[in-house]
């Protein structure tokens, strides 16, 4: 019996550290609607700074003072980031801020290695909490007890802050309806900055408090960030109590789960999230979001099919691209094939995000399923390459059909997180089912047949399929189905009123996007000759998201440009510099500031404005568009 009590307490201690970080993320999202990918980076910075300070400062006061000071310093860094970077892009398309914080995360990963060196660092134990307390023959670390108390204390302080202060009232009001708060004359700038500061402080404090029990190292951020997102979503976005309950739920399920299934930790949080979201689409304590109040059709420059000149330009670009084998070497061709494959992958996600308005955080699942489909068919069934390329993506289709059915019942960030959960579940199957998938050692020897083996042939094959995929998706965008999909995106209520079955339309779009992603994955398997669980991992999903955002969500063509720019830059930087993450991150941040609507989006607005001012035949429309902007 004592054992179970102690296991329960241990779970509570894990929950407390998770809660600190999650509460910060939840507050920031609730008010600013920013999906703060850099939250893990702030957590890590807190730990590193606390390590340095507690090593320098003596005694108990030095230790605790160092922890708090570290969190404060990181909070100041957070304020600077908010004021210099995020303030510029609050009005960018949804999720664009994710791109900026992603860039920051990349930079911080390299910066900590530059400053603190590559080795894992071991911090001091907390003075006064070094040992363990005996509980009926079981030891409970006293630091765990400290954390168990700290969690509810922080919860209580936050509750008082939100319920009893004017600032708290404003924050809650903004969480519920920030347009209304703005209309009532509250200075949003400082509200956002202060909320961001509090959120970052909590993240850094969470990191700093880890040093007595963890090693400080440069991968801490990624280790925590996904888990924290999951906790926030299970609890319900913007709900502090929800975050607390979810943290306890996840930690306790883990603590007891490993007694029965020792391998469960790897997937547990995602299973819990999937179940919770299917049963309660807004998390345990979340409330349904009010329907968006924006006026449809005005925020975006209206889309139109290509003019004949533009068609010619696209064909010319394709011909130029097809000429690469005549002057590029084998390496250039292989990189070209890889970029073409990622164009397919990015346009498939772009289709889902910009036309369907559904941002998937787990799109790599269907890419990976396509790749595994090919690997199974080629290695186990021994089918020829053409058959594999045609049939392999069907695994992506099946996956998208099953998961999409559940996912499209949700919207916004909840949709995104459910897709992430599904992707992680698929990933862990590939990772764990060693007998079939080879585990993380993957499936080797999936090389193309002779006719496609030479780099130039494979390049033409990839380029051809990419061109075809872009063309087909464009045709779908401007087909009646595409219009119905856009109607559902822009106004679910109105489109339902005119008889469009929104869920079925979205589900179909999800399946289309998943199948096209599967096609990209199938080609990728042949390009690399092997398939690994990596092909469906979170980082690939994030890459796809970055490509789409970089190109511009509110465009028809952004995914193509985003994929080319991001992939080419990534490959080139990794090959050229040891600090590729630092440079790539800085580059992304610069692009975010310079092109607040993505590369294509910003260029299009500039072109449109010019066209308008030169012809100026429709003053009414121009003014309406500008107000909307």
């Amino acid at each position, binding site marked *: 019996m004592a054992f179970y009590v102690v296991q329960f307490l241990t779970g509570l201690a894990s929950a407390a550290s998770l809660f600190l970080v999650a509460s910060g993320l939840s507050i920031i999202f609730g008010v600013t609607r920013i999906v703060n990918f850099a939250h893990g980076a702030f957590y890590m910075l807190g730990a590193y700074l606390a390590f340095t300070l507690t090593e320098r400062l003596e005694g108990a006061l030095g230790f605790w003072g160092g922890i708090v000071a570290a969190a404060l310093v990181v909070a100041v860094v957070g304020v600077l980031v908010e004021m210099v970077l995020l303030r510029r892009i609050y009005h960018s398309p949804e999720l664009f801020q994710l791109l900026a914080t992603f860039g920051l995360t990349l930079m911080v990963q390299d910066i900590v290695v530059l400053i603190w060196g590559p080795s894992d660092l071991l911090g001091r134990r907390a003075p006064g909490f070094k040992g363990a307390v005996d509980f009926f023959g079981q030891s409970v*670390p006293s630091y765990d007890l400290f954390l168990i108390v700290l969690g509810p204390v922080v919860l209580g302080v936050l509750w008082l802050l939100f319920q009893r202060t004017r600032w708290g009232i404003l924050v809650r009001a903004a969480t519920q309806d920030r347009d209304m708060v703005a209309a009532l004359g509250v200075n949003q700038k400082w509200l956002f900055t202060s909320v961001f500061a509090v959120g970052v402080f909590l993240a850094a404090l969470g990191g700093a408090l880890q040093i007595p029990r963890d090693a400080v190292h440069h991968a801490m951020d990624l280790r925590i960030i996904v888990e924290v997102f999951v906790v926030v979503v299970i609890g319900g976005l913007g709900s502090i109590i929800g975050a607390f309950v979810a943290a306890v739920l996840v930690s306790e399920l883990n603590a007891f789960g490993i007694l029965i299934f020792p391998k469960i930790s790897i997937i547990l949080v995602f299973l819990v999230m999937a179940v919770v979201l299917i049963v309660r689409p807004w998390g345990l304590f979340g409330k349904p979001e009010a329907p968006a109040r924006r006026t449809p059709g005005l925020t975006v420059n209206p889309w139109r099919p290509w003019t004949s000149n533009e068609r010619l330009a696209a064909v010319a670009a394709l011909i130029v691209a097809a000429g690469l084998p005549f002057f590029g070497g084998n390496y250039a061709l292989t990189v070209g094939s890889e970029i073409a494959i990622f164009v397919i992958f990015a346009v498939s996600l772009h289709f889902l995000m910009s036309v369907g308005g559904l941002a998937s955080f787990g799109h790599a699942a269907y890419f990976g399923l396509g790749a595994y489909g090919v690997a199974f068919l080629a290695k186990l069934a021994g089918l020829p390459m053409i058959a594999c390329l045609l049939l392999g993506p069907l695994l992506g289709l099946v996956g998208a059909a099953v998961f999409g059915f559940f996912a499209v019942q949700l919207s916004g960030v909840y949709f995104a997180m459910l897709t992430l959960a599904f992707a992680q579940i698929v990933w862990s199957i590939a990772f764990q089912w060693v007998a079939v998938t080879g585990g993380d050692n993957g499936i080797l020897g999936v090389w193309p047949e002779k006719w496609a083996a030479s*780099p130039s042939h494979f390049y033409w094959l990839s380029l051809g399929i990419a061109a075809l995929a872009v063309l087909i998706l464009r045709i779908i965008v401007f087909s009646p189905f595409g219009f119905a999909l856009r109607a559902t995106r822009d106004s679910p209520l109105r489109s339902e009123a005119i008889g469009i079955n929104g869920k079925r339309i979205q589900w179909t779009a999800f399946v289309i996007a998943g199948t096209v992603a599967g096609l990209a994955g199938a080609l990728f398997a042949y390009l690399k000759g092997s398939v*690994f669980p990596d092909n469906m991992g979170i980082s690939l999903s994030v890459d796809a998201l970055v490509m789409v955002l970089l190109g511009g969500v509110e465009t028809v063509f952004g995914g193509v440009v985003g994929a080319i720019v991001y992939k080419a830059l990534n490959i080139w930087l*990794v*090959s050229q510099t040891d600090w590729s993450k630092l440079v790539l991150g800085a580059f992304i941040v610069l692009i975010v500031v310079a092109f607040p609507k993505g590369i294509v989006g910003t260029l299009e607005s500039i072109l449109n404005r010019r066209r308008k001012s030169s012809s100026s035949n429709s003053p009414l429309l121009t003014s309406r568009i500008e107000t909307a902007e």
Partner: protein
Amino acid sequence: MRNYLIGAGLAVLVAGMADAAMAQSEIKIGEINSYSLLPAFTEPYRKGWQLAVEEINASGGINGKKLVVISKDDNGKPADAQTAANELVSSENVAMLAGTFLSNIGLAVSDFANQKKVFFLAAEPLTDAITWSKGNRYTFRLRPSNYMQAAMLVEAAAKLPAKRWATIAPNYEYGQSAVAVFKKLMSEKRPDIVWVDEQWPPQGKIDAGPVVQAVAAANPEAILNVTFGADLVKLVREGNTRGLFKDRAVVSFLTGEPEYLDPLKDETPEGWIVTGYPWYAINTPEHDKFLKAYQAKFKDYPRLGSIVGYQTIKSAAAILTKANSTDPEKLIAATEDLSVPSPFGEITFRKIDHQSTLGAYVGKTALKDGKGVMVESSYKKGSDYLPSDAEIEKLRPKD
């Protein structure tokens, strides 16, 4: 546009001619590793091979040609490693590929080498598959494999009186196969052993408290640990606080390597049986020479990564010198049964499975001046811990 194209074409041509001229006087090795993902291991590793390159060129290079190592980062992803391998082979025209740390990346590059018929010397990946079940004629491996390290540890572990054993290992191929081999060899030597618990925390994400608690509840007499890096630190801290290691024998993979032992500082648990690299306690002329040269150049002590990096390039140079060619078939012929000196004594690249006989040190952990060290350590030759040739014939596919 046209001018630009012509210009670019000319530039490529000129660069190509310059390359051709250089190629007469130098030999290139393409090196790939997880520099950004695992700097704690790969930074000392890089220093190691840099020292080797310097020494080789100072003593006349490869049959009079200068040795150049072109190094690429793989981001910790198999797909990126293949992109890098392709660049090295297609644009840099390297004579051979070398390096890699993670098992899946080693396998990806090995498969690439097999497909493109390029010689590949795997430095670090521990998986048995790379030389056995997925072995191919183009791939050789330097470090002692999972199986060899398990066999070394089993030799010491079987002498322990403990009968109830528990295992803690990261939940991926490395951890799984380490536990599987250890269990198999151990049960062969000691049929009386029972395995009472196993814990599989996700790599890099151990929730150490519940894991320690769960293992303690099974009340084992001895524990096998396979976690390393930050996971190991968390496990040791929780285990120390909760008294998990008190009066229990612990056998642990890799923990004696300075990369993993040093971060534990004054919390290093004492008496664990580990594989590792006690650079401070090796008194052989070969190692002294290496140690002096390394410390003189970098003002730092070597980690195991330094040895691996150094010996990878030293072996590669020996292979290139003996083959006196960059033809992969000749390189393979030169490597099979080639013996080369190393800081750990002479090693041989076996013909039968392309595994080198580099060994490892096995010893016990101890605390000295607030730092973790390995004591009572002795060198175990790799050749003594491999299965019989007949067994390997069964494990390895025919070329």
